[in-house]
């Protein structure tokens, strides 16, 4: 990293302090971002990354410290001010009105037209042009509700580009993307920096940080603990700076998988009559002590499989647990029989944000002791559960009476994993178990999953993170258009090949996967 001229500095944050009540989220942070560079910010969950970015984007006001943009000090009283200074932010949790159309979401609050007319034709064509220019494929007239995650991400970035941002903040943009989508995002990021913009980019995936960032700032507990470049450090260096733990790694398994089938699906189909089924005649088996990974671009039937296994959607075909058919059983009974579930979207069906951790610990386990005593709900029992999860899985930021919403996203995820694994299940359906989780927590979750596996738990693992799939799975099934198109051995497959299966380039449709790579 050569000494760059001072006038290349686009952003200079000095001594930023932000308190929430008595809690200090940002503690005298300094940050310098240069034009034409990708600047990564890494740090464990709750380190204060998002908070810092919100301050830069004018959404939060710093309690202390100064912001300089291109050399001149600024004080933002609203996001509008920051936008005028050329700053745009893509949030970790999308901020899109799902009932509005794509173009409406993009132009919102900066609409072309006069006071009494919204020039929708101009707005649509401008957004469409912007999308084409940046290689973002998105239907500007689609209602956001109908747009997939990747598409939503592109809409978020379009919002930033629409406002001519020179400083583009991406808060964990790749957490929800599949590799191909991530790759095109990075390509786009490069184009931005080549045009002279600066990109600030937050991620927990250290390899992509090392691949794409020009500079890296590490934050721990609200303070900057290091500043480096990819040339100077390795992933383990970064991880050490962040949390003082080693990179997550999975030891080769010592216990062989069991032979009894704990979960099986035969010809399961989910879909509306007369439409192409979202999940099409899928059969699979999970043995005890085995982790079966499911790879696939999001929206290729994984969600429907989850819902069918859980008993939340109508399906045809047969699903059985431990040899017994469970098709007719409601979700409640399935869970009572030892089906644990780590949901795709923790905010949607993982936790109830407005309830305390105590109540959240009982979620899904309210029908059995220690939570249920006769007809009664035992608050003490639930609190004990919560306390056990908190201490065993190192959930930080709360006690049993804390609201779930007060935890950072990563800690919420750890809480959910702890709740599901803590119940000694027979079968675990885990969707994206480490999404948005820092490395420290990620290695903790991984070792919990493998430990449970070694104790005999059969796990169906759905993940968008290929490293995770490759590291944990004993067998790998690839979903494409609602069908299983490949059964692979994770030890013998590389990411390239897997990607080809996932995008439908390779692979013939096999509906039975038992034989696969066993």
């Amino acid at each position, binding site marked *: 990293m050569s000494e760059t001229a001072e006038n290349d500095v686009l952003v200079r944050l000095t001594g930023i302090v932000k308190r929430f*009540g*008595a809690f*200090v989220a940002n*503690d005298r942070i300094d940050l310098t971002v240069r034009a034409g560079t990708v600047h990564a910010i890494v740090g*464990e969950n709750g380190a204060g990354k998002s908070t810092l970015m919100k301050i830069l984007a004018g959404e939060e006001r710093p309690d202390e410290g100064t912001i300089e943009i291109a050399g001149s000090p600024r004080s933002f009283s609203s996001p509008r001010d920051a936008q005028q200074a050329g700053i745009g932010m893509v949030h970790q949790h999308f901020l899109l009105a799902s009932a509005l159309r794509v173009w409406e979401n993009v132009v919102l609050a900066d609409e072309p037209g006069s006071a009494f007319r919204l020039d929708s034709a101009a707005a649509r064509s401008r957004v469409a042009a912007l999308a084409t220019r940046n290689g973002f494929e998105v239907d500007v007239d689609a209602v956001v509700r109908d747009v997939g995650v990747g598409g939503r991400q592109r809409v978020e970035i379009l919002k930033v580009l629409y406002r001519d941002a020179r400083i583009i903040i991406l808060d964990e943009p790749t957490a929800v993307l599949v590799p191909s989508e991530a790759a095109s995002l990075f390509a786009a990021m490069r184009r931005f920096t080549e045009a002279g913009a600066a990109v600030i980019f937050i991620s927990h995936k250290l390899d992509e940080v090392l691949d794409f960032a020009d500079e890296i700032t590490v934050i*721990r*507990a*609200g*303070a900057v603990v290091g500043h480096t470049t990819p040339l100077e450090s390795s992933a383990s260096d970064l991880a050490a700076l962040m*949390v*003082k*733990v080693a990179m997550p790694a999975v030891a080769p398994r010592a216990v062989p998988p069991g032979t009894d089938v704990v979960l099986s699906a035969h010809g399961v189909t989910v879909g509306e009559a007369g439409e192409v089924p979202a999940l099409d005649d899928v059969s699979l088996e999970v043995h005890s002590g085995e982790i079966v990974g499911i790879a696939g671009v999001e929206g290729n039937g994984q969600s429907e499989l989850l819902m069918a296994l*859980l008993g*939340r959607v109508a399906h045809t075909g047969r699903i059985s647990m431990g040899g017994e058919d469970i098709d007719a059983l*409601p*979700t*409640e*009974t*399935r*869970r*009572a029989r030892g089906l644990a*579930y780590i*949901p795709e979207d923790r905010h*949607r*069906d*993982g*936790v*109830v*944000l*407005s*309830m305390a951790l105590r*109540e959240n610990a*009982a*979620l*899904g386990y*309210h*029908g059995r002791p220690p*939570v*249920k005593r006769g*007809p*009664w*709900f035992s608050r003490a029992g639930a609190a004990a559960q919560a306390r056990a999860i908190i*201490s*065993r899985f*190192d959930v*930080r930021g709360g006690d049993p009476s804390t609201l779930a919403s007060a935890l950072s996203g990563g800690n919420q995820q750890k809480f959910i994993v702890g709740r599901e694994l803590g119940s000694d299940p027979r079968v675990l359906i885990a969707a994206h178990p480490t999404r948005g989780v820092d490395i*420290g*927590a990620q*290695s*903790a979750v991984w070792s919990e999953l493998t430990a449970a596996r070694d104790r005999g738990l059969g796990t169906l693992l759905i993940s968008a993170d290929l490293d995770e799939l490759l590291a944990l799975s004993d067998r790998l099934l690839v979903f494409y258009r609602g069908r299983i198109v490949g059964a692979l051995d994770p030890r013998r497959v590389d990411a390239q090949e897997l990607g080809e299966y996932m995008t439908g380039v390779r692979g013939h449709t096999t509906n039975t996967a038992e034989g696969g790579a066993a």
Partner: protein
Amino acid sequence: MIRRIAVTLAGPVVSVLLALLVTTLFLTIGGYSATSAYEVMWNYGIEPASLVSALNNAVPLYLAGVAAAFALRMGLFNIGVDGQYRVAALAGAVVAANLPLPLYLRLPITLIVCCATGALWALVPALLKVYRGVSEVITSILMNAIATTVVAILLADVFRSGGGQNTGTAIIGEDGAMPVLIDLGIGNRTSITGFLVVAIVVGILFYLIQYRTVFGFTLQVASRSPEAAESAGIKVNRRIIWAMLGSGAIAGLVGMPHVLSTAFRFDGTLPTDLMFTGLAAALLGRSHPIGIAAGAFVLAFVERSSQVLGLVQLPTEVGSVFMAVILLSSAVGYWLTERADQRVTLWNTLRRRRRETPPPAAPLPTGMEASR
């Protein structure tokens, strides 16, 4: 603990003070003397007969409040309590008057019939919500109007007993009426209705079901996050139906104190505003059984004491204004006290911090392994 109690109490107290303030403003602008109004109201209100009457009148308000709260805790706005209690009261009056059984059988059967009728009336919005996706608010509003017509037709063409202007059902004899709980015997009409017991039982059941059972927990989850509920094995649609049924069943009792303890028949004197006053009580008491009880009593007290306003040439609307304002000020009062409470908490924490003189940097977070 003491602080929690203080905070809990501060809400209502601030509310009442605010309400007094606003009502005083109203009266003064209207050219009336507020103090004399409050004086006669208070003096009349604290007479034993008035207190007993307020207690008796608080019972239906309480039941209406609990009925509303039962649905509110599932996130449903049962604005149909009104229709439910009127239909149920008619059913109850007919059963209580005609069932040829001794009191100890007739009374419970009457009450059960009322609960069932109210629940049945509430079932329509519930089913439409579950199977047709229609908001319960709109169907409840429609069902209220339809209840009026159904009651009118049944009363005029089927159950009307006797002629004249009174359009009531048959008179309910001793064998069907609710016995008096206690007759305090300190002046005119100072007997407390047996419905007080019913109200207490309903309150306890409400508390246990909503706050202490797993069922209550599942209702809460279903109302706050239907998706999480479904994934946890809680059937949201069933909770909607149960919550509406429960609410309707309680609502079915609302009109009965009047039918079985006051008028001894269903007739035109059945009060028509119990739902909104009851809802006000529920909101005043923040849907907590004890809070609702307090709210109901305050509202009944104000209603009773405002009867005397005519003595000082004041319009009785002062009472209604006061009740309306107290409803708003209760929300504001809670808001103020919560705000203050937060401030105090923050202040305390900061002071403790400073006293402890913390280390310059926060302790480094320990690794995951270290904790295991």
